[in-house]
């Protein structure tokens, strides 16, 4: 189907980036982008009484790669929880918490999301990750290779050779078609793979390299800001899942407080799935919420952004991270019946997978559930907090409508609080929070905000020149009082119509066709002399510590058939 000119008429438009707050206005589309004028024969789309918003931007969801696939292996029953036979226009849909890539693509589209980022790729596994992404239709995508336990990074950091580190980062992005720097439990995954231990603070030392998480975080943040990659460092902090870890998380954020952001932005660090790293410790050394401390820090530090990693209770799902020791810890905590996959990758990173069902009647899990929305309600600036479930770690992304209902409606929260363990009432501040998110704020947290944080100029808004990615929801904000009818939010946040690049993908709430999405990637080495200097050491490094040859590392262009190169802007 060719992209046609169209005019979306009569909808209630929210375009927070351009200051449009629920106004009745028309959106015009031509050649796949938003324009200010269309030919007179442009197709009219009636959106009256409906919310018209930019396509959603998922900044952190585990949707492709060996970890995700191993999660599928551990959850064979997941593919009987949801299945739809193939039709003339669609392939079969199967799987729920860790669905097939095809299903994932279709579900995201039906949620109104048109961009999905895979946030944790072992660089050595890049080919596999891209093969799976290729089988995920519709969404534009990108991946974050992991750096926080990479031996070459350790070498650069130890020598305080930021120029070499910059050259290495640019090289790695280019060879593996990456987009941003992911850091997972810096130094901790290394300690797990090689010393059967972990780090417990940002100042623990890796014996062989004599470096600390603090140095790794600072080095990568500085290199990232000087290189001008589109996004800040994207950090899964140390001590994930441990009682009291909010202090480590604050230490992590403080580590990079004095790093100067790239001129294109204010942020230097993105704290991902904050819920898992926001546990306080009460006087009996039991878990309580750390949300107030974390939110206070975020509120007073514009250089920080975060996403929720909201937990969904009583839904079987699967944890999967590049954090080997954390997954071992979860597996031990869940008892001998818990399945456990470990997945260390030579000279680069670790990983683990453990299926889990967070229980509403479990005091620990109930507090986890509260922490996500509690923090979201306490953070004042919606541009710096993004709604995620760390899909599928906290729960499947298909629960976003429910998460949004908790944020928009105190009534919905209170009802939920009644059903979960009462620990939530004593150990979090959730019951006392009156705030209810507005539509504008929700649409910031799900598209305008993440697009801005990711440095995606053509996404998350409906200004002229933006990609014509539009989600239309069957909600009339003037007629429905969301705070009092939260069930409506849950039902109607599945899009009625979705347009991507000017083409209809969803009509009447049903996917009608699928398309191949773009891949955003960096394809640019750093300064020639630094690149060459770095490469000399790197080739030797490969020869010694890898099990594949240097020449077979770079992934071929066939793995990203619709590339969209994003340039980096080094400051000199």
């Amino acid at each position: 189907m060719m992209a046609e000119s169209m005019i979306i008429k009569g909808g209630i438009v929210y375009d927070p980036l351009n200051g449009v707050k629920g106004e009745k206005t028309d959106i015009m589309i031509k050649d796949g982008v938003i324009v200010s004028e269309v030919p007179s024969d442009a197709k009219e789309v009636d959106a009256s009484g409906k919310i018209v918003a930019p396509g959603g931007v998922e900044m952190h969801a585990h949707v492709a790669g060996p970890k995700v696939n191993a999660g599928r292996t551990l959850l064979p029953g997941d593919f009987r929880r949801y299945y739809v036979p193939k039709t003339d226009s669609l392939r079969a849909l199967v799987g729920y918490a860790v669905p097939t890539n095809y299903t994932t693509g279709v579900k995201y589209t039906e949620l109104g999301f048109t961009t999905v980022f895979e946030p944790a790729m072992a660089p050595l596994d890049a080919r596999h990750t891209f093969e799976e992404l290729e089988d995920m239709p519709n969404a534009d995508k990108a991946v974050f290779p992991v750096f926080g336990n990479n031996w070459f990074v350790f070498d650069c950091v130890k020598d305080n050779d930021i120029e070499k580190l910059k050259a290495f980062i640019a090289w790695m992005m280019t060879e593996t078609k990456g987009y941003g720097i992911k850091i997972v439990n810096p130094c901790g995954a290394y300690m797990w793979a090689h010393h059967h231990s972990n780090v417990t603070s940002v100042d623990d030392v890796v014996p062989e390299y004599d470096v600390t998480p603090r140095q790794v975080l600072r080095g990568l943040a500085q290199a990232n800001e000087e290189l001008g990659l589109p996004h800040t460092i994207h950090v899964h902090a140390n001590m994930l899942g441990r009682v009291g870890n909010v202090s480590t998380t604050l230490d992590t954020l403080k580590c990079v407080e004095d790093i100067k952001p790239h001129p294109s932005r204010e942020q230097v660090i993105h704290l991902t799935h904050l819920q898992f790293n926001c546990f306080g410790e009460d006087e009996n050394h039991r878990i309580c919420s750390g949300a107030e401390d974390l939110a206070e820090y975020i509120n007073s530090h514009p250089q920080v952004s975060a996403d929720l990693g909201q937990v969904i209770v009583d839904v079987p799902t699967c944890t999967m991270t590049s954090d080997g020791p954390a997954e071992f810890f979860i597996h031990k905590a869940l008892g001998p019946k818990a399945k456990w996959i470990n997945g260390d990758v030579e000279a680069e990173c670790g990983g683990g997978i453990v299926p889990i069902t967070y229980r509403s009647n479990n005091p620990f899990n109930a507090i986890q559930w509260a922490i996500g929305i509690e923090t979201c309600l306490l953070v004042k600036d919606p541009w710096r907090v993004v709604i995620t479930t760390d899909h599928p770690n906290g729960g499947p992304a298909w629960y976003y409508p429910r998460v949004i209902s908790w944020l928009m409606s105190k009534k919905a929260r209170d009802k939920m609080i009644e059903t979960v363990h009462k620990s939530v009432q004593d150990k979090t501040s959730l019951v006392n929070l009156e705030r209810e998110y507005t539509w504008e704020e929700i649409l910031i947290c799900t598209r305008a905000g993440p697009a801005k944080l990711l440095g995606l100029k053509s996404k998350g808004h409906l200004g002229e020149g933006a990609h014509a990615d539009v989600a239309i929801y069957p909600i009339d904000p003037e007629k429905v009082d969301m705070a009092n009818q939260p069930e409506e939010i849950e039902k109607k946040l599945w899009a009625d119509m979705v347009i991507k690049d000017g083409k209809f993908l969803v009509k009447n709430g049903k996917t009608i066709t699928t398309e191949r999405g773009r891949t955003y990637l960096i394809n640019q080495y750093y300064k020639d002399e630094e690149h060459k200097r770095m490469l000399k050491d790197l080739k030797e490094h490969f020869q010694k510590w890898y099990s594949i040859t240097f020449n077979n590392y770079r992934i071929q262009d066939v793995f990203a058939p619709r590339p969209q190169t994003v340039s980096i802007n080094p400051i000199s």
Partner: protein
Amino acid sequence: MVEVYKDVVCTFCGCLCDDIEIHVEDNKIVKAVNSCAISRAKFLGHESNGERQVLIDGKEASLDEAIKKAAEILVNAENPLIYGLASTSNEAIRKSMELAEKVGAKIDNTSSVCHAPTLLATQFVGDPKCTLGVIKNRADLIIFWGCNPTQAHPRHFERYSSNVKGYFTQNGREDKKVVFIDVRETRSTSKGDLFLKIEPGRDFELMLALRALLRGKKLQKDVVAGVKVEDLEKIIDMCKNAKFGVIFFGLGLTMSRGKYLNIECAISFTRELNNHTSFLIIPMRGHYNVTGANSVMTWISGYGYAVDYSRGYPRYSPGEFSAVDALAEYCDAALIIASDPVAHFPKNAVKRMGDMPVVLIDPKPNCTSIVANVYIPSLSVGIETEGTAYRMDGVPLYTRKVVNGPDGVLSDEEILERIMEEVDKLQR
């Protein structure tokens, strides 16, 4: 003129060695450097594969005819099966899955007769593993159980395990302890520091004994499965005192009595060892891309093998949708891709294959050609065409093309694409 291709990936066994140097003269491979004997035979001998002539019912035919006929067979069958896949590229496997969905076929790969028990066990308990480079750099205790790398994975020792030097193992073999557990002496077993000869079919018992000892239990016997308990105690000591141990296991464990129970027990033993030290476990996968076959099938259907699309969505049932069972019981047509079930399957399955229409796509004619109604020769992946394959530890590599295939011969991927086009026409 001799052209030299460096860092070529060997598409023979699950080691997927990627450091092969291939010399080509006049479109002929004349030399293979770094290859093991099997690899050398594969590269140098690849042209003696037999004539690559398209055949329908044993008679020469055109590719177009064969593709049409293959599509007809699949569309007209009630219960078609697609089988093989372990010796082709991921790209071809993806296409096979699409085709299976289109025609409502069963689809299975060769792991159902080798490492399927490993998958089953993983579904039960998980699978603590790592890439082979981690073993190279770190492992100081390596246990080979029911496998014979010297003959089946000849370069495993030198590249990944016992003999290679790594970050924490800079002296190579000297820094490591190597143990073999097998039912007989092999060319591998003499290379270990310790060899435990175990009575056939009693691996499970031995594994249970090891788990009991690890938990500090005293055994009531002096000998278990033919092995002295003091030797088992020695192994437990070695395991606990290792900095980083690994178990590599092969068909001796997956295909002997107990099957997936053996593997579940081995994985559980490995998990429990992690209460003491780092310990991981890795299957020795045979065909060069059997790991890819499981992986691709999983991300497309949710399941690694034994999948049925007859209801328009994937269902999984090993023992029912697995090729041996489906062929022996109720399939009425088969498309075989890069495999030779007639040479390896039980009699009843082979016998039924003789009575049903069979399509074979393979670079070379094999025993299955004898029963095949349609034979479509294809290009050899990693020699005449490129494509993705996964090493036994899941590391993805891109295989190369070093010579041109014969005129008019297509890759598996292209052939499957063409069959799908024909299927679409027939189904319209």
